[in-house]
């Protein structure tokens, strides 16, 4: 548990999927302090995706509360949850992060499209996107390239730039390095840490790779914070 004020706090959260073998997840308590770098470790089926969906507000708990930046996500309407997510969370997926037909610039600026407050924090979107790309080690002319033409490693960096632009309070990375080779993994994580720190954001990375643990402030096992249950299908 972090020592500073919480950016994210889950309390007594309970959720049960319908029609998926009734998979259920209970999270009695879990929080992340502001600017903390947390690695959430868990095997497949441990409920990581359900937990991320709860944090992002695409599903709401049947019981308990999910507080992000002090706001109970479940108390918001569906539309406000979508906007809240856009304003407060930068997301990086495992792979297939980008719209392949759009330019790198459009992909990066897409995260500002539905987040007016975040957009207002970026005075010069194009220059900011350019700087982020440069800082993440992407070639100078990347902005105008079609996202689908980049290598997987480059696409992950563009996804990181998209998550970081506008400095959202929380960056969630869902196994962002699993599609990368070892050397690229290390470089990517270094860059991600550096840029997250520069943006003043908190980082929650989900992975099943325990070797990444030393690089984080705190490592949390899914099994320690959550109980899962699966009814017979």
């Amino acid at each position, binding site marked *: 548990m972090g020592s500073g004020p919480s950016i994210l706090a889950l309390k007594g959260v309970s959720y049960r999927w319908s029609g998926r073998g009734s998979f259920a997840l209970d999270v009695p308590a879990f929080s992340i302090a502001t600017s903390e770098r947390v690695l959430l470790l868990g095997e497949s089926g441990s409920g990581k995706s359900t937990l991320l969906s709860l944090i992002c507000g*695409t599903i709401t708990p049947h019981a308990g509360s999910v507080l992000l930046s002090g706001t109970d996500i479940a108390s918001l309407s569906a539309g406000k949850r979508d906007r809240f997510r856009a304003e407060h969370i930068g*997301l990086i*997926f495992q792979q297939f992060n980008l*719209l392949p*037909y759009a330019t790198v610039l459009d992909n990066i600026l*897409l995260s500002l*499209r*539905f987040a007016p407050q975040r957009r207002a924090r970026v005075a010069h979107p194009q220059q900011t996107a350019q700087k982020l790309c440069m800082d993440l080690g992407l070639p100078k002319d990347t902005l105008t390239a079609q996202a689908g033409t980049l290598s997987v490693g480059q696409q992950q960096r563009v996804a990181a730039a*998209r998550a970081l632009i506008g400095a959202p309070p929380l960056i969630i990375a869902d196994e962002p390095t699993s599609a990368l080779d070892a050397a690229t993994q290390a470089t990517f994580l270094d860059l991600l840490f550096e840029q997250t720190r520069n943006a003043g954001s908190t980082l929650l990375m989900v992975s099943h790779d325990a070797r990444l643990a030393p690089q984080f402030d705190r490592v949390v096992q899914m099994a320690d914070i959550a109980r899962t249950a699966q009814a017979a299908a």
Partner: protein
Amino acid sequence: MILRLALGSLMARALTVGMTMLAIALSVALFLGVEKVRTGAKASFADTISGTDLIVGARSGSVQLLLYSVFRIGNATNNLTWESYLDLAARPEVEWIVPISLGDSHRQFRVMGTTGAFFDRYKYRSGRSLALAEGEVMDDLFDAIIGADVAAALNYEVGDPIVVAHGLASFIEHDDQLFRVSGILEKTGTPVDRTVIVSLQAIEAIHVDWRSGAQVPGQSTPADALRQMELEPQAVTAALIGVKSRLQIFGLQRAINDYPSEPLLAILPGVALQELWQIVGIAETALIAVSGMVVITALMGMMATIFSSLNERRREMAILRAMGARPRVILGLLVLEAALMAAIGAVVGLGLFYAGLVVAQPLVDAAFGLWLPIEQPSMQELWVVLAVVAAGAIVSLLPAFRAYRMSLADGMMVRN
């Protein structure tokens, strides 16, 4: 940015999107083409005669009288006697009257006997007068003026001889009285183009030696003798009438329809045309319905394409959702894409329609005498384009709503 994304998404699926848009384009071109032919045919019919207030003939049906007197379609069941004609001509309401005598032919073309007044009074396409492309109006009894199609089809020039056949599709010819082409009319796009025009006296002249539909054996009056004769017709097929005041049209029509000496019929060309449209209205509606169905089929094809693309686009929708796009934005994006496809398809269809018109215009004119004008897109054509775009957006609502539900269920967690 959303519009740019929609365009980018369409470009990424260029082949299937292109084929879908081509189907829409072809269906729109077909629809506009059918509409053009339909309105062109109507306009062409309506343009055939203008400035004539009444057409008079023996009592039959108004459409029949219009068809045989103006369009040379079908035959008169009876004639109008010359006495009645003169009686009508003498009425105070009548400003001008032009007799028409039909019944004979030259090859596949009708021969029409009339007076010189026909060239002054017959108007087509909103008041245009007939004009000679070459030669001159009838001077001699056996002079004939031929329409542009007659000249083109039979390769006739001024001075060429013409033999008039007795009746229609007849092998009996008035070969003892040869006519001479004295003039060729400019193309009008009306049945006049397919008519051989001679004087009313000439029609009488070639029948001088005929009794009861056959030539009196051994009797053939020389042409010069005929030229000296006082030839007065006994009857004409119909007459075109112009009145002094338009207020008198209905009064004169009633008087002619109640004419005591013989059963006559006077019709207003415009009204008879309307009756004709009512008769062919069902076929017209069927034609529009079929071409409309082709457009609908193309749009259904587009809907099927969108449906089949939904699964492969789940990741794309998940990314948009992760970025904060509401499910209704996903719905809107798919509808926007469909509207763009339909709009591009419809505009390309409009282009294909005009390209087809440029190619087909002279061919249709030559084959059917139907002039299809190439004009700026009419409001109706623009409405068709708009309607196709709107219909495209509407049919896309089904797959878009499915995408909406999928994006609600998937959230951001699709892994494929």
